[in-house]
């Protein structure tokens, strides 16, 4: 089961920090099944 994680406020993020966040989220995805379909 996937779980929600709230990312830190993005108000004052630099592009480098945004990239770091995205890398961390992409890295945490693994290869598990998608829990829903749209």
């Amino acid at each position, binding site marked *: *089961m*996937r*779980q*929600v*994680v*709230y*990312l*830190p*406020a*993005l*108000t*004052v*993020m630099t*592009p480098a*920090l*945004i*990239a*770091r*966040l*995205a890398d*961390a*989220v*992409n*890295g*945490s*995805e*693994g290869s*598990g099944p*998608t*829990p*829903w*379909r*749209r």
Partner: protein
Amino acid sequence: MNAACLVEDGAQAWSDTFRGSPHADVSLFSFGPIKTSTALGGGVVACRDPALTARVAEVLAVYAPMPDAWYRRRLAKYAGLKAATRPEIYAALVQRLSGRDPDAVIGGSARGFAATALIPQLRRAPPGRLSFLLSRRLAGRTVAEARRGNAADLLARLRRQEAAPGRRARAHARWLTPVMAVDPDRLIRDLRRAGLTPRAERPVSASSPAVPFRRPSG
């Protein structure tokens, strides 16, 4: 017709494009320490009826102002907390907490009000410096657009778009950006190691295709 008065809790929604719903009789906005547009305290009561505005002003006028020293202490405290949000300082802080939950420690020290006797704390007028900063906030541009732009950049970088619930919402204020993680503990660990400050929520149900994201209750 009925005499119901609709009060809207606008929380931190004050922005260039939102100043309260036209359907609300009264809209409340907060500019407290942890709000995205902050004056480190204070708020706005926007009434549709000028007579009610006058009555609210009358009530507020009898409250004693907080001393200037209180606001200077507050400025110093939040300047320190703000410095701790620099990724390298935050990462070092998390190391030093040795197992204690950073959310609890930092969240506890960032509270705008003491835990007890809230109402007497509300019945105070803002000191002059706070009013000055608040009036600047009201006159200036808000940060909502920058935040939305940053959120759009982040979402565009996600490999799996389903990882971002609510990504299609057109009027999303993006105070928070939720993502779904298979291994939330690992994600939180990775982010903290990088000096970023995520918050974990309890598991949500992923069984209903009609409701892809639901904030857990209770």
